[in-house]
């Protein structure tokens, strides 16, 4: 929630977001199957809309995603799993994408 609100504030001030990198439990925000409690904000849906509307690149850390059962269709195939549960707007990739973002951007802000 903190990361989401921070990202919105950054965009509204005219900053460009190079990439959102989900890791650890953060990858749950890229899980199309996840459902929020009825009276709480649907954070995965909110992220999805925000990233799509602002055309922001997003990546879910592959090792964090796999152990949490969040698969892209490609990974699904490789591991012979029937189902697919990755939001369309988010790619699965390695930590190199985090390092790349750290190098390409003026600021890296992470939320544990």
């Amino acid at each position: 929630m903190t990361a989401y609100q921070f990202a919105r504030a950054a965009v509204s001030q005219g900053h460009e977001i190079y990439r959102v990198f989900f890791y650890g439990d953060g990858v749950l925000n890229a899980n199309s199957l996840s459902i929020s409690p009825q009276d709480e904000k649907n954070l995965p849906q909110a992220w999805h809309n925000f990233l799509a509307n602002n055309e922001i690149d997003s990546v879910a850390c592959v090792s964090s995603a796999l152990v949490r059962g969040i698969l892209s269709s490609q990974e699904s195939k490789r591991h012979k799993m029937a189902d697919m549960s990755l939001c369309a707007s988010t790619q699965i990739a390695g930590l190199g994408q985090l390092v790349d973002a750290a190098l390409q951007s003026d600021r890296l802000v992470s939320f544990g």
Partner: protein
Amino acid sequence: MKRKTLTFVTRYAPYGSNKARLTVDAALAAAVFEQKINFLFIDDGVFQLVQNQNAEMIASKTIGKAIETLELYGIENVLVDGSSLEKRLLTPADFSVPVKVLEAEQLQKLTEDSDVVINL
């Protein structure tokens, strides 16, 4: 793109969470970008360095092994906070890889000289 100085900080014990593993993997991923890389162990992170770990006992990957590959990947600046060692009565002789022990002032200079500090 100018060469940047990246400093990875790890403060978690090796197996209680995935965080220790994540930080080592991130540093290994960073090695291929040919930047200047520091890897700093503080707090419980120093437990990652203890020799003779054997995570097969808990059906996991031994993190000491991954740390030993840091140097192979060209990450030579393996640094440890001296006060974190003292608190745990550990010395570099307890570790599986050679490390540089930093005092308070050197730690602050390390941070100041870094373009990016990654503390996951």
